[in-house]
């Protein structure tokens, strides 16, 4: 399976749906160790992303890269907070790492490189190390699991499934951590015992990728599978 425009859009839509479903939980997690807005931040952001995709003014995207860079730009323009720039830059980096229209589309391995570019962007912007109790702690094991699956011969859907599992474990593993970045760090030791909201939304993001790729595999689109 290659990463085409339709898959990129499906992924973004799946994230938007997951955020719509889970925003209360994200906000609740953020209330415990942050400022109680992570769910509404992402909700506002992905609602705007959908408008950018579907709205009357939406230009036809020139390819999957454009879908994702545009998603990133919209998040930067609409979310604010820490998660706006972080996810915004991440999606812009993923989109930029994908082949241009006319070039050969990314396969599972190529998309892995794009996901790695996303993580690099997050780390460059936020300066967080693994273990700091942030988005990085879900994204890092997600990427590792994805690569391991691809190295073992997996296709995109299987690799994405592995990444989702990795992200979810990573999110859970933030519970015992003391935050060293973002608002939760102000709590010092009191941040221990709570799951990081950003790592949790990152898990949603990879779970959405697994769903979108599985659906694409099940219902062959124009590009086949």
């Amino acid at each position, binding site marked *: 399976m290659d990463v085409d425009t339709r898959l990129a859009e499906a992924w973004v839509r799946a994230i938007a749906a997951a955020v719509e479903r889970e925003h209360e939980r994200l*906000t*609740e997690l953020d*209330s*415990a*160790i*942050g*400022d*109680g*807005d992570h*769910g*509404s*931040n992402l909700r*506002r952001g992905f609602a705007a992303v959908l408008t950018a995709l579907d709205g009357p003014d939406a230009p036809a995207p020139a390819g999957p890269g454009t879908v994702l860079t545009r998603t990133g730009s919209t998040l*930067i*323009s*609409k*979310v*604010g*907070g*820490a*998660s*706006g*720039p*972080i996810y915004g830059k991440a999606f812009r980096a993923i989109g930029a790492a994908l082949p241009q229209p006319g070039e050969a589309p990314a396969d599972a391995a190529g998309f892995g490189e794009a996901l790695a570019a996303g993580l690099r962007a997050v780390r460059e*912007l*936020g300066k967080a190390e693994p273990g700091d109790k942030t988005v990085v702690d879900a994204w890092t094991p997600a990427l590792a699991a994805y690569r391991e699956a691809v190295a073992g011969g997996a296709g995109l859907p299987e690799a994405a499934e592995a990444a989702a599992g990795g992200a979810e474990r990573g999110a859970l593993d933030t519970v015992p951590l003391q*935050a*060293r*970045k*973002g*608002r*939760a*760090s*102000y*709590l*010092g030791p*009191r941040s221990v015992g709570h799951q990081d909201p950003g790592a949790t939304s990152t898990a949603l993001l990879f779970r959405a990728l697994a769903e979108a790729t599985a659906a694409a595999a099940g219902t062959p689109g124009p590009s086949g599978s």
Partner: protein
Amino acid sequence: MKKLINTAETVLEDALAGVAAAHPELAVDLANRVITRAVRPSAPKVALVSGGGSGHEPLHGGFVGPGMLDAACPGEVFTSPVPDQMLAAAKAVDSGAGVVFVVKNYTGDVMNFELAAELAAEEGIEVRTVLVDDDVAVEDSTWTAGRRGTGATVLVEKIAGALAERGAPLDEVAALGERVNAASRSFAIALTAATVPAAGRPGFDLAEDEIEVGVGIHGEPGRRREKLRPARELVAEVVETVLADHRLTAGDSVIALVNGLGGTPLMELYIVFGEVAARLAEHGVTVARSLVGNYVTSLDMAGFSLTLTRADERLLELWDAPVDTPALKRA
């Protein structure tokens, strides 16, 4: 949750509509969410732009006006504004003399203002950023996102704003802002949690006799939970904490801000200020100027913060300079 709002989703736009209606001396760009002075300064000058999450009113919109800010960018409640807002603000107020971004040190604010600074630079606007990080409750800044920006923001905006109004160049205004920040320390205590409209309930639960010590302005819990004690004891602890970090000594003089977090009556703030003044007098520290009231709030949170800024002649003279904003006025 009991709030005078229409819907949780529209608090910012509804509040901005109210600001626009109440303040003909301000221009409110509802589409871009930027508040500027209705009447531009007559001569080119360095422009001060600030912004941050909403819920801290009168910060920042209430400080737009002659002698203080040129523009404010309000984000959603407790959420940094987006780079587009700061860019729109910078473009609206830059007179060619450059723009100073006054940024409270929070991950989101820092990142968004950083992106905005890049965009502004691309448009040929010279930008300097003054980072405010005065909250000594954040103890170990190596292992955290660093000290939070709280009450000192008012002093930075006022004093740097006064200098900008006099036509000082960009680097000088920014350097002064940094100096005010470096001279300032804050610490806050909350008696109740804040309720973010979209969350619908208080950020944390406190018993009838409990307080959170060392809170920020975003409804997050503090460093520790304690029993409520008489104001005198709480203030003594806050003053000691600030002085321990600040190394103020007998003979020093300060500007003291006793700031309400939104849900505390002015009467209590005056009681707190009385105790602050008494404790500082014991340390031989002179309160050269003071401000008591709600300036940097945290929605409906009950509690107060204390900010002490080491004062010198120059800072005092600029502090005393005329200012004409909705929330701070001086003839």
